[in-house]
């Protein structure tokens, strides 16, 4: 079952659990220590965050560590892709203009 992440973070306690994880991977016990919530309640909230694919869990020794999923990468990629697309488009304009300007006889090559 997949849970809508907006729904998952609509709950203030879950938001605090999520925020705690955003500072670094934590076990259930560690999260419960920082929040006025029982361990079973924390587990419940983590289940919802897991189903919303906002967090991951991995075993470490006898502990299960929860962490924020590193999908923020997708957003970063989008931003950079748009940044570099813009850069290369401007580059093409400048390169072609300056080349035409430095070429005394106009290129026979057809202009687009």
């Amino acid at each position, binding site marked *: 079952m997949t849970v809508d992440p907006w729904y998952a973070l609509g709950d203030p306690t879950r938001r605090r659990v999520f925020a705690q994880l955003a500072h670094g991977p934590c076990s259930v016990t560690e999260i419960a220590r920082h929040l006025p919530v029982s361990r079973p309640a924390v587990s419940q909230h983590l289940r919802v965050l*897991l189903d919303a694919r906002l967090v991951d869990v991995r075993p470490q020794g006898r502990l299960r560590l929860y962490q*924020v999923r590193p999908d923020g990468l997708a957003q970063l990629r989008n931003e950079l892709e748009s940044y570099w697309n813009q850069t290369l488009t401007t580059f093409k304009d400048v390169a072609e203009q300056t080349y035409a300007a430095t070429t005394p006889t106009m290129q026979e090559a057809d202009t687009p």
Partner: protein
Amino acid sequence: MNATPHEPAAVHVEIIVDVPLDHAFTVFTEQFDQIKPREHNLLPVPIERTVLEPRAGGTIHDIGTDGSICTWARVLAYEPPDRLVFSWDIDPRWQIEPDPARTSEVEVRFIAETPDRTQVVLEHRNLDRHGEGWQNFTSLDRGNGWPLYLARYRDITTQTAVNTSASAGS
């Protein structure tokens, strides 16, 4: 409209320019000031100009209208007319990343297609090195932090929702 990324921690962009190889390289490196988008200014004042020092070991820096300097890249390779590599010392929140271990890098290759036409291929890679940058929103639990962070998730979750069949379990 993105193609399926073969390398999730990299961005590939390319373009064909109707100029010779040498000219393409020269314009990119000598007139970087003109071609770099300005909307992501890391200085508190407008940018007067951007300087790309044309040598390995040089830097790329913005100079503000008040003379202040923001160095946001280190030139790692300068090999005219084929190749330019520089680091990207900017974190995912568009702030300077002082730790080189947490920076990515940009390689620009210039390939002659014909004597008058050059292909320019740009790869921005090792994005995963920025790692925790987008996870360390200290104000996440209050104020503007978490909605911003969540907005970053919206796209990916709608994408993954499509090909997720079993996310429960374990």
